[in-house]
């Protein structure tokens, strides 16, 4: 068990050591974004601009025009909304090499309640031209995808979550931005998951396998650009796709998959995720359960899709 934000903190300091162009810009929540070891060890590559996210975005863009690779760090709610227009105008439009690294995506700042949870960010970010949107599924995926994000030129939105979640991968797993990972092959039904609920999809798939259902499991760590080919194959070969995300079912992974299905004219999609309602304070898994996102319910949905097939 380890939190995605820890994956970011552990990776960014290594990247910063290797490359002095890597900068971190904090907005007074560096402790929560796990950037404080970076701040301490690499002060020349670190800025804390206080509770001023809009300015943080612009400062990041300015640094990028001078060849730096800044990571602007905040919570997903502020990173995707408070500074949304700055991201659009000063990063996406001029195609600048700035990374937005956000913790507290989805319902994971569970105790903090709705103001600090973020179920809209992926939808907002994937609407922006030139933006790449990544939601890693565990600690190791986070580390690798943060590193990969520094290898591509242009704005990248990286979405992490607050609380510790089980590992899906080990440290040797490799990732490529825009290329989904097929974790299980199967032909009856496909589960496509992303972000911090990937492990629930893994549990559901294991349960389904035990019951003799041939399930295909895909980690869609990159929401944009979406790996359309793997979605097309899933729709054509398994007929039914269940999407699972810790995000509003509107505009996130589920919608992205539906877009492919609609244009293809084949297959059925069932979206699982936050049911277009705000979160509240409470335990993370309780909040997910309220929205119908548990391993059992994912498995049930998959079986339902098979029997309807």
């Amino acid at each position, binding site marked *: 068990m380890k939190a995605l934000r820890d994956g970011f903190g552990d990776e960014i300091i290594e990247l910063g050591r290797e490359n002095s162009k890597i900068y971190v810009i904090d907005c007074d929540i560096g402790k929560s974004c796990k950037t404080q070891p970076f701040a301490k060890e690499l002060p020349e590559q670190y800025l804390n*601009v206080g509770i001023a996210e809009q300015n943080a975005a*612009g400062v990041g*863009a300015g640094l*990028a025009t001078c060849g*730096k690779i800044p990571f602007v760090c905040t919570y997903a709610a502020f990173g995707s909304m408070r500074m949304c227009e*700055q991201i659009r105008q000063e990063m996406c439009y001029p195609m600048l090499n700035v990374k937005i690294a956000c913790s507290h995506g989805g319902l994971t700042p569970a105790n903090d309640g709705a103001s600090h949870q973020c179920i809209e960010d992926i939808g907002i970010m994937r609407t922006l031209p030139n933006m790449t949107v990544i939601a890693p599924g565990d600690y190791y995926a986070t580390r690798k995808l943060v590193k990969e994000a520094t290898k591509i030129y242009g704005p990248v939105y990286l979405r992490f979550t607050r609380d510790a979640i089980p590992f899906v991968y080990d440290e040797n797993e490799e990732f490529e931005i825009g290329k989904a990972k097929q974790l299980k092959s199967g032909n009856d039904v496909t589960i496509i998951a992303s972000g911090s609920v990937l492990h629930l999809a893994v549990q559901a798939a294991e349960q389904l396998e035990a019951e003799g259902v041939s399930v295909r499991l895909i980690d869609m760590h990159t929401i944009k650009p979406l790996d359309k080919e793997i979605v097309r194959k899933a729709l054509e070969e398994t007929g039914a796709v269940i999407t699972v995300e810790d995000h509003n079912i509107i505009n996130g992974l589920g919608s992205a998959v539906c877009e492919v299905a609609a244009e293809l004219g084949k297959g059925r999609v069932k979206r699982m995720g936050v049911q277009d309602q705000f979160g509240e304070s409470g335990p993370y898994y309780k909040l997910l359960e309220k929205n119908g996102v548990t391993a059992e319910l994912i498995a049930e949905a998959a079986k339902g899709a098979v029997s309807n097939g």
Partner: protein
Amino acid sequence: MEKEAKIALLKERAKELRKTALTMIYEANSGHPGGSLSAADLMAALYFDELRLNPENPRWEDRDRFVLSKGHVCPILYSALALRGFFPYETIHTLRKYGSILQGHPDMKRCPGVDISTGSLGQGISCAVGMAIAYKRDKKDARVFAMLGDGETNEGQVWEAVEAAVKYGLDNLVIIVDNNGLQNDGACADIMPTQDLCDKFKSFGCRTFCIDGHDMEQIVGVFEKIRMESGCCKPFAIVAKTVKGKGVSFMENVVKWHGVAPNDDEYKMAMAELEVGLK
């Protein structure tokens, strides 16, 4: 160059900038003349004297950078870039036309010499802060100049950026406010009073100068002072009192000329007045 000769030359350049900008707006039949004209003298001093640039190599790494945070007055920036040879002068006839490098608001991907894309107010100054930090940390002696409108200071982000500039001791950053007293919907005093901008920048911690933004001697003088004070560990702010529409009598201090193009007759009258130069 003798100071007097320099001042005379810069006044001449300012006249060329005004004529070029107005011609662009007239031909495009859209654009923002008022704020272009109020900024013209400051822009002449920047582009023909103060900024260290290389038109042959617009992305030269050691250049001074200029951020037009009030991006809507880009005709005056494009005029300066055209007259400095960043692109052929004839390009001015393409403002706001399909496929042009001269977009309605500055686009750094298309237009040589534009250091950052702007247009959404309040944002450019943050980018300027980022650039100035990068220059400092890279131990470059190049500087960053950011021009803002006074109406633009309504945006809270401006003050976020100023706080950061002060925190990081950016004495390589010069913030210039084109304080023409008018904004889109009316007088700043009516729409959103800025209060005394000199006091504001001072109280935020900037080394602040208040000048007449149409007096070329004062403009050149303030840039000289700023150069001499480099190393003061404070960002510089110049609050330049200006007149919106300056140089065209019927445009001066008239809100309407914020964002409309002159018609044929108005253009002819304006060009005749501009030819004479500022009184």
